[in-house]
């Protein structure tokens, strides 16, 4: 008698391509996790492909179908469940020693022929412990079925070794990012800098957003200042250095001219360039004119009556402490959101480059003086990552973001790169992204780029990735034992649940919450 929870039986195949026959009253799904047990171990398997099987020849099957369709014959098989069935191709995931459940290893053997496979249960997954610095990604998913098993990875390791989030538009990248930000904001092991070109993380989509986070360790910078508590994004021009423009497409001659002005005029180099003050090195007039025009456009500056006027976020007269303030907050494990929705892509990258440069230099300095330990991880969230990490961009030279991708982890500064086009990012950079969160991706080329650089062997998962529905993803990470299928929670539901938990606990205390509010000194 076959047990009630049995879903199928192993019938053939080889390691990594195990063939199982589906029990007639069950249904296998792509990505489903199955367990095959014997006396000493449990082997975890995952469905990566599905097909039909039949005891009837293909020719006869076609004939039967023809009779059904053309002659309205109601053809029925004798013992149809025995003769026609479905086959699943399974790959090995893990093996657990039943005598020592903590002994979880990558599976290296085949289950016995005719072993039964069953659905995975919460109990089977008790080995999934909460790490020291937990970062919540979602609940474990088996096929399309969400299990009540929260998945945490070590946030400090994952964030410092970079994360790539890939997936087609609408598959849930932003929801996932919102969940991650909400969770990380509650923790003191990481500070997150978010360049938010869609202005979606702070206020949310008219509902709940990071503005509602109980810890209040969130700063929001925007060109608007219509909501109390948001900071008006102003950056003083004197903090700009030629190197900050490295992530933008300036010619060699233009870069040399910028450097020459900086050498001669120091912090007043931009003003001097715009007012065409002389420099010791001679440059072609055309070079200076183009450079001047580009910088005026980029920084939204006008010149009139021998004076420079600022119209945008870059100012001569404000924002001196903005960059250092942001970096200080990041060092205190705050989440900083920059609303870049009204910026051109180039301005967004320039602002990002400014902050990341400052932060990276600080952390390099800490490392040099043995002061890095105890500092939180800094993670920079970058949308449409190929803008700065794309092959074409990097062929023209490296920038602070590619430097981070290559060596940031040594200094506890990581990237969360979000893209729907991972194939545009060079292989060596992709390889440095040690955690990949893969959402549904229809394009073969993009799937392949991810599969080729994943931390686990996903060579058989192309179809699985293509079939991932909204909110379904796979996490492939150096810090996970296997490529974990996840169901990303809807942000509103997740945040509300967390808010309720926080309220029950009496709320997360922030710096000011202990101060008794009294309006002393107020007279009627």
């Amino acid at each position, binding site marked *: 008698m076959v047990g009630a929870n049995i879903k199928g039986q192993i019938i053939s195949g080889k390691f990594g391509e195990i063939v199982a026959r589906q029990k007639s009253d069950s249904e296998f799904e792509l990505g489903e996790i199955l367990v095959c047990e014997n006396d000493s171990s449990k082997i975890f398997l995952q469905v990566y492909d599905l097909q039909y099987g039949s005891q009837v020849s293909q020719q006869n099957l076609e004939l039967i179908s023809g009779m059904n369709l053309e002659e309205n014959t109601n053809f029925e098989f004798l013992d149809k469940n025995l003769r026609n069935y479905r086959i699943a191709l399974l790959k090995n995931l893990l093996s657990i020693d039943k005598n020592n459940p903590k002994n979880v290893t990558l599976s290296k053997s085949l289950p016995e022929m005719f072993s039964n496979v069953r659905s995975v249960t919460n109990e089977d997954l008790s080995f999934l412990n909460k790490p020291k610095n937990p970062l919540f990604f979602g609940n474990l998913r088996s096929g399309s079925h969400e299990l009540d098993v929260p998945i945490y990875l070590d946030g400090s390791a994952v964030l410092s070794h970079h994360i790539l989030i890939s997936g087609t538009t609408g598959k849930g990248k932003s929801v996932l990012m919102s969940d991650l930000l909400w969770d990380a904001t509650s923790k003191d092991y990481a500070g997150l800098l978010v360049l938010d070109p869609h202005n979606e993380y702070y206020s949310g989509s008219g509902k709940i957003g990071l503005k509602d986070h109980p810890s209040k360790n969130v700063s929001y910078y925007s060109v608007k200042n219509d909501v109390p508590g948001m900071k008006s994004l102003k950056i003083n021009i004197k903090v700009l250095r030629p190197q900050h423009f490295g992530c933008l497409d300036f010619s060699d001659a233009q870069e040399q001219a910028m450097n020459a002005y900086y050498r001669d005029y120091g912090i007043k180099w931009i003003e001097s360039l715009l007012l065409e003050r002389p420099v010791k090195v001679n440059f072609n007039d055309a070079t200076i004119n183009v450079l001047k025009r580009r910088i005026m456009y980029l920084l939204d500056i006008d010149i009139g009556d021998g004076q420079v006027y600022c119209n945008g976020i870059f100012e001569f007269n404000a924002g001196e402490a903005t960059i250092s303030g942001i970096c200080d907050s990041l060092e205190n494990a705050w989440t900083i959101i920059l609303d870049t929705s009204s910026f051109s892509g180039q301005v967004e990258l320039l602002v990002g480059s400014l902050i990341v440069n400052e932060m990276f230099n600080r952390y390099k300095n800490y490392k040099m003086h043995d002061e890095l330990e105890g500092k939180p991880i800094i993670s920079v969230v970058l949308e449409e990552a190929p803008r700065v990490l794309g092959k074409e961009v990097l062929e023209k030279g490296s920038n602070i973001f590619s430097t981070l991708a290559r060596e940031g982890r040594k200094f506890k500064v990581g990237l969360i790169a979000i893209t729907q086009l991972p194939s545009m990012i060079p292989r060596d950079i992709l390889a440095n992204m040690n955690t990949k969160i893969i959402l549904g991706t229809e394009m073969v080329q993009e799937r392949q780029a991810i599969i080729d650089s994943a931390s686990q062997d996903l060579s058989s998962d192309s179809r699985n990735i293509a079939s991932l529905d909204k909110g379904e993803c796979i996490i492939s990470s150096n810090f996970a034992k296997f490529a974990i299928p996840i169901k990303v929670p809807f942000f509103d539901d997740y945040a509300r649940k967390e808010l309720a938990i926080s309220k029950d606990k009496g709320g997360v205390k922030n710096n*000011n919450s202990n101060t008794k509010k009294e309006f002393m000194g107020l007279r009627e």
Partner: protein
Amino acid sequence: MTEKLKFAHMADVHIGSWRDPKLKDLSTEAFSMAIGICIQKNVDFILIAGDLFNTALPGIDSLKSVVKEFKILSEKNIPVYVIPGSHDYSPSGKTMIDVLEEAGLLKNVFKGKIVDGKLQLRFTKDEKTGVKITGILGRRGTLEKLFYQDLDLAHLEKEHGKKIFMFHTSITELKPESKSTMDSTDVSYMPKGFDYYAGGHVHIVHQYSFKEHKNVVYPGPIFPANFEELEELGNGGFYIYTNGKLEREELNIKNVFKMNVDCEHKSPEEVYEAILEKFKGKELINTIVLIRASGKLRTGKVSDINFKEIMNKCYSQGAFYVMRNTVKVVSAEFEEIKIDDMNPEDLEESMIKEHLGQVKVSRFDSDKEFNISKELMHILSSEKHEGEKVYEYEDRVRKEVDKVLEL
């Protein structure tokens, strides 16, 4: 603003801030000069955006001179609108600002009530011009931030007419780099659409217009309050707003001559010579001389630099006052101490150990010297107990010191 409107905006007067009587008088003198200019320029009213006094209860002499000025303004029918600042605010409400208001010499515009947990400010209307003024006081530790977080902005924004908002806080977006770690309030917490935002607290001279907050102005102090400010600002000043135009009035009551001396790899004698060289032949009459020295000496200690003689020479050249800053001078004898993550107590112990034996006392061995130093530091840092009178406090400290020193 109305075409005929003219008002003065000053802040951070800090009457009574300098300990030295000569410099203390300068704050009062500068204030007097400012009031004189306001009268001469016939302003409609004066705004003082916090810290008129350096303490909530200033000394009688300081008070007397300020009251005299306010009396003149009152006679000239020039109203003064103020908010208490972080220095002259008092949680108990016992502040001289209240006394002056009761006497009708000024008006504190931080007025309002709490409605449904929100701070609903009330406008004070200037009778002559019809301008409506309100504001939020400053508190120590930037605690006024909490007031801003509960401020009923809509109530203020819907008020029609010409409006001025007074504040005594640092605005995040306008903080200078040198004060980047200073706690601050985001401009978004302030009501939008006012005609003028009269600031104080940060001793900077700054004016800026945000998209929704035009004319946000810090006038700087009336007279610099410390060495750094004297170096940076030279003198104090304030603004006069006339028919939409802002003009700065500098209060040049003294000349300031500042010098930077590099002590790196120099002996105290060489530093002495270098300083003399810098003011050789300079006219120092009516001048405040600022000497800032930095760098590591090749030999000797900071105290070996003959500043006494330097000062004498400056005064003989007519200097009004000479100040020195040697914080960044490192004596040759001292080695750099690595602090790591020490708490203040560990750091103190480390510093005491570093200097043990420098002063020879026959009956103290190094252990005893260490213990006595620690105990003395503890006793001398004790504060006056609540309800303890000053003479009782002094007596207690003296007795405890005697006991430790076995006197």
